[in-house]
């Protein structure tokens, strides 16, 4: 068994995963990714998943060892934000040519590429990603990285997650393994404190973690490492000295969280910063974990005070939208965002949820959604584009919140749509983020273009056109002049 397949077996058998625990021994061995269906598969590969997880580490040079497509077709496509270094947005690839592949020059080219990057950019680390072709031709990126690290005195980290290994989700986990094997624990911080935490799986999309971090700052809690959003290499390398961790969003990095607990005794909980109640719950959990690990219990009271104050402000802001959004019907079609807390806030201001996908939700989440929605029929695993279109074009929803993939289903069905996945332009985390989400919903639903595009062209819809004209009878001279002509035929004109 090669080391990669051993690794894959290892990450599939995740003891901290509820789903995995629920399986029998045989099913567990088969792993958690469903086999892909050729011709009907969607979503990224393992390389994609690994790169997504690691790339937001801002001061690292991310070098993709591949022919052009892997990096050339995918770079600079995500909106994670950095408060400092921008190297992560510079794209590096070995851009293997046919000759490189045939002549077996891949490893040498990779080595030279690492040297060029080191000479030109002097990053604290280079992450080297293997891909399908370089895995297939047998380039030993681990050996190259090891040699380069020795030779250049630089952290050079192999990320062994070629696309053919499996799905994006698997790639997320393999990336976490790479961090565990090569990065975390390699630097010993000299400033460890009892209020240090890690945030795992937070990507700082559109800078949204900056809506949350000041809340932690106010409580005296320091984020030792936010992995990967706005992270520096050294933060990640010294992340093992945090006292507690929060695992955000889906279970993509669950192996990272669990293994950090095993190796360095960092307890973690799973939480979300989306929605008001979830944000509060996350703050509460962080404080409790820290107290368990020896922090002063007074932080609990301070946390409650902050929560009460911030919730009050947020609800008050949201209340202002009630008049405009009450009774509006929302269709949530998303995997990533833990939607129940968002659902809760939307319903709290009078919006109606006409459907939510639960594809990536845990059993517990599904239960919560069920309790809130009171109607199970509104839950669906996944909806085909055709069904979605049919539903939206019958105006069964006033807005769809989803990822980019179904954007055009909504738009072509002339239905307002808001991006709540990774390509989105707006920060939605924390209390202010929830207000922003509602504000964006309001803007989308009330944009005057809907009135324009939903009406058929006047010449395609004569009766409506005539009504329209009649209703304008008392309008300006302009309209009257027009009525005179629109009502007449060309023949009558020529008679005049």
């Amino acid at each position, binding site marked *: 068994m090669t080391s990669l397949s051993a690794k894959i077996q290892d990450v599939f058998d995740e003891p901290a995963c509820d789903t995995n625990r629920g399986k029998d021994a045989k099913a567990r061995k088969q792993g958690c990714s469903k086999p892909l269906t050729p011709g009907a598969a969607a979503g990224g590969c393992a390389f994609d998943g690994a790169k997504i997880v690691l790339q937001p580490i801002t001061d690292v040079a991310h070098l993709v060892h591949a022919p052009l497509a892997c990096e050339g077709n995918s770079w600079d496509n995500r909106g994670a*934000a950095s*408060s400092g270094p921008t190297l992560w947005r510079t794209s590096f690839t070995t851009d293997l040519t046919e000759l490189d592949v045939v002549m077996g020059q891949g490893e040498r080219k990779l080595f030279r590429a690492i040297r060029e990057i080191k000479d030109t950019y002097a990053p604290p680390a280079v992450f080297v990603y293997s891909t399908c072709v370089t895995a297939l031709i047998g380039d030993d990126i681990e050996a190259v990285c090891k040699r380069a690290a020795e030779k250049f005195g630089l952290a050079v980290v192999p990320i062994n997650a070629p696309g053919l290994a499996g799905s994006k989700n698997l790639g997320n986990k393999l990336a976490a393994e790479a961090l565990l094997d090569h990065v975390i624990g390699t630097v010993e911080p000299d400033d460890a404190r009892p209020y240090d935490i890690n945030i795992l799986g937070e990507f700082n999309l*559109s*800078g*949204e973690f*900056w*809506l949350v*971090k*000041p*809340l932690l700052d*106010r409580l005296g809690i320091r984020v030792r490492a936010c992995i990967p959003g706005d992270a520096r290499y050294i933060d990640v390398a010294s992340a093992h000295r945090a006292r507690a961790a929060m695992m955000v969003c889906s279970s993509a990095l669950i192996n990272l969280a669990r293994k950090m607990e095993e190796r360095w005794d960092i307890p973690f909980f799973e939480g979300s910063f989306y929605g008001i109640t979830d944000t509060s719950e996350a703050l509460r959990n962080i404080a409790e974990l820290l107290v368990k690990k020896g922090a002063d219990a007074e932080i609990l009271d301070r946390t409650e005070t902050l929560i009460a104050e*911030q919730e009050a*402000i947020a609800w*008050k*802001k949201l*209340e*202002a*939208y009630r008049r*405009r959004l009450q009774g509006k019907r929302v269709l949530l079609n998303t995997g990533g965002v833990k939607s129940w807390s968002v659902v809760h806030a939307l319903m709290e201001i009078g919006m109606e949820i006409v459907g939510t996908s639960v594809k990536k939700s845990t059993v517990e989440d599904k239960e919560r959604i069920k309790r809130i929605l009171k109607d199970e029929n509104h839950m669906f695993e996944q909806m085909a584009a055709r069904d979605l279109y049919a539903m939206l074009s019958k105006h069964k929803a006033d807005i769809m919140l989803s990822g980019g993939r179904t954007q055009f289903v909504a*738009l*072509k069905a*002339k239905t307002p749509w808001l991006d709540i996945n990774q390509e989105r*332009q*707006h*920060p939605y985390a*924390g*209390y*202010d983020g929830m207000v*922003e989400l509602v*504000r*964006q919903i*309001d*803007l*989308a639903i*009330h*944009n*005057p*273009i809907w009135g*324009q*595009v939903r009406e058929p*062209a*006047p*010449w395609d819809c004569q009766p409506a*056109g005539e009504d329209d004209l009649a209703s304008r009878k008392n309008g300006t*001279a*302009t309209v009257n*002049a*027009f009525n*005179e*002509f*629109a*009502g*007449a*035929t*060309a*023949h009558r*004109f*020529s008679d*005049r």
Partner: protein
Amino acid sequence: MVRILRNTKSAAVNPLKSSQPLGAAFAFLGVEGAMPLFHGSQGCTSFALVLFVRHFKEAIPLQTTAMDEVATILGGADHLEEAILNLKTRTKPKLIGVCTTALVETRGEDCASDIANVKLKHAEELAGTEVVLANTPDFGGAIEEGWAKAVAAMIEGITRSGARTRQPKKIAILPGCNLTVADVEHLRDMVESFGLKPVILPDVSGSLDGTVPDRWVTTTYGGTSVEEIRELGTAAQCIVIGEHMRHPAKTLHGLTGVPYAVFQSLTGLKAVDRFVSLLSAVSGAAVPDGVRRHRAQLEDALLDGHFHFGGKRIAIAAEPDQLYQLATFFTGMGCEIAAAVTTTDMSKILQKVPADWVQIGDLGDLEVLAAGADLLVTHSHGRQASRRLGIPLMRVGFPIFDRLGSQHKLTILYRGTRDLIFDVANIFQANQHAPTPEALDPFRKREMPDELRSSPLTRH
């Protein structure tokens, strides 16, 4: 009810207006073989000329009566006569469009009778050349008024009056000065696609589109012909674009009985739908496939583009009809008009501008009122305010001297609206601010909790 805020300042700061005679000359430039003539001192002409050249990057025919000290005291009739005769001999124009300036109007010259005298006295010499007069003192109005007065003057002076046999397919179109060369071209194509024969007055698409003639021409080349102006009365229908063209249309109606329909703007899906319906009704033809396709493209542009517009605050400074055209475009996309500044309070269209108030003023006013807006919309002179405020500028109107091709930008009908959506969305995308921890900090000075409109989280 829009509140019109009158200008209360004594010092205009960074003017928004260009002068009224410039607007009149602009209209004359849309006529074939025309030579606009400023009746005033040399400077009046040269400033306008330079501005035209900077905008169009073309040699612009524009002459002056070169009033000097003596003429200013004794009267300019001789200068006018000499100028007309000189122009006739040297450039053989088909039309001399006299635009008065503040200088001769302040003197109180009776230019109309001066010109009548010249025509009488030199009837033979001036055969084949029309001379029309637009009274356009610089101290009144701006481009719009000058443009409209010149068109009305041409209709009054040239168009054969009386009821005529109507040609059922002939449509007279009187476009406002806010239509670009590309707009006029596209308008013609659209009208022709219904099997109609448009006569457009003025037609800057023929004369100011930058074609390179095979010889040196000292007048305009291309544009509406004088003969076409003479025969306007045989049109079955007159279509007016822009409120400021209502007056010329009324003049035509009064002279010839040609009925008119006013379209205050041809930008935006609904306005264009109405226009297309009219063309269909007048021609009796079905809407052509090409037009339907453009409509569908606009629908898609509305869908794709609206994300960039919702909740944005727009500050516009433009002449009244263009202000209306753009303000309705922006509000139709979900924007809010944060500031509306215009040149004169004479236009009725201001009451329809979708803003709480319209300030009569200048770019200095715009700069004050636009603070906090997401986009400035005005001509090239807005660039300094844009830089100082750190707000991107969308260049519209006249003059645009620091960008090429403004005359070829489409702003009307389905395609023009589509292009505007993309232009604006691209400006927003090009000026996105990267998020920063400081801007997102929830403990920053918060705005009113129930503030619905503006959010510091919006980045582009």
